[in-house]
């Protein structure tokens, strides 16, 4: 609760503040929950025809683009699917809705 800006009930605001701090970035990158969930998603995608495509579709709600597919698949082949899922969880596109 220290890291993510847990809403302060003593503040009266019209709109909750929305900034990312470096502490939040660290939490999103390294927190146990994120890393465990990334593993679970990787396991769920195992054996699928197009794991990267499905990962992007499920996380970002759109088809994977050609150029990014190459980058993501390259990363996954070097470091594994769980590490890739962690990366996707940290994409701005994952956190923000257009």
């Amino acid at each position, binding site marked *: 609760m220290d*890291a993510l800006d847990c809403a302060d009930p*003593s*503040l*009266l605001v019209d709109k909750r503040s929305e900034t990312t701090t470096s*502490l939040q970035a660290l939490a999103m990158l390294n927190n146990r929950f994120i890393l465990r969930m990334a593993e679970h998603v990787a396991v769920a995608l195992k054996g699928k025809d197009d794991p990267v495509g499905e990962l992007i579709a499920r996380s970002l709600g759109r088809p994977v683009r050609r150029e990014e597919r190459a980058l993501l698949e390259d990363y996954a082949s070097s470091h594994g699917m769980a590490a890739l899922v962690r*990366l996707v969880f940290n994409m701005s*596109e994952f956190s923000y809705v257009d």
Partner: protein
Amino acid sequence: MINRRDFLWQSGGGLGGIALSSLLGGEAQGGGVLQEAHHQPKAKRVIQLFMAGAASHLDLFDYKPELVKRHGEKSDFGEHVEAFQNGLGPWKKPVWDFGPYGSCGKLLGETVSPLGEVVDEMAFIHNMTGKTGVHSQATYLQATGFDRPGFPGMGSWVSYGLGSLNDNLPTFVVLPDHRGYASNGPKNWASAFLPTVHQGTIIRPGTSEPITHLFPYKGAKYLTPQAEKDAGSLLGKLNREYAEQRVGDSRLEARIQSYELAARMQLAAPEALDLSREPDYIKSMYGLSPDGTKWAKEINWKEEADAFGRKCLSARRLLERGVKFVQIWSGNDNGFPRRNWDSHEDIEREHGPLSRGMAIGTAALIKDLKQRGMLEDTVILWTTEFGRMPSTQGSKGRDHNPHVFTNWLAGGGVRGGVTHGESDEWGYKPADRKNPTQVYDIHATILHLLGIDHEKLVFRKDSIDRRLTDVHGKVIQEILT
């Protein structure tokens, strides 16, 4: 063939990011709201030493011969006293003897005599007054300038004003007592209505995870250092492309900069906090004992000196590496056995070890900053939430005294070897009750030394131009050079 985007990214990493953010307009994430100082600053850094639980001015810094003379006699304040608990017993003299130190001849209690070596750098204020004898409100008041939650800590205001662009470490760092938080916990250093980037970052020196989440959760064996590194670059690329397609959404640029700072912190923080790089004579000057020393069960000065000294030495290293505001806490919550300054039962038992440890670490810090040429542009503030009563509570303690307490300052722009504002003959209230010093004056003075006019550093919230000093505060010219 390299495109403009990649050129900016590769040619400077963060530099490219900054150029983009200034093009996007508005205050860059982490940039100070002040384009330039209001006037020539004397200092660029602050250390705040907060004694949690209410340190007794009478036993440390504010010598009252009247209490020595009348020790044991029935106390009589000449007026009705609303005690916090029941601390209206006989007059209680200071537990320890006082002696003169420095060229200025300032009288210091024996347990804080290590500060004697640096007392000529210090300006004392013995007529601080508060509004409340309740720990949480009083701690808020000294930490944020308001006696209720919802307001930013002084460090957050300094970060908001001066900014933190391009640093490798957070601008505002908090070193809590290792045994736990003081009253109000992290709300004392919250950013409240200021942008969240200005909140204090908790650092716990000497622990395996000095900044929470600095390193990945160890159980995730799939994440190798190379995987982390490659993720950083790829993520940066993807997030930058995403932001460029959405010009005008400053949150996205802010997010990129946070990740960049996080990456820089992962490199910079371990080095900054690695005290093994310090020579032994420095570590012992700060009162550190060898790593892994086993401590006695009872509160003792060696353990307090080690804990406080570690924080002071870490603070010096952090300030050298660009941190602008370090807040060090001494004393924790109200658990038992008591390890805080709230000595209702026995002043000697806790104030002894805590004050000796604090004095050793603080004296070392001042000496060390001075020998590195950093004291002249670093302001140090020693504060607490209120004082303690000149009358006894129980047989050996002192009750809360919100009416008067002591602060002292040292460093950049502060006139050393002076005392401004006296307390009355018992140390019960300010001597001149109409002209006490308040936290607003302390805050105005510190902002002034940083080149900031406290009336001009504002944030509009709910139609009020909020500031650290509310609608009060006068720079204390008498303690400035």
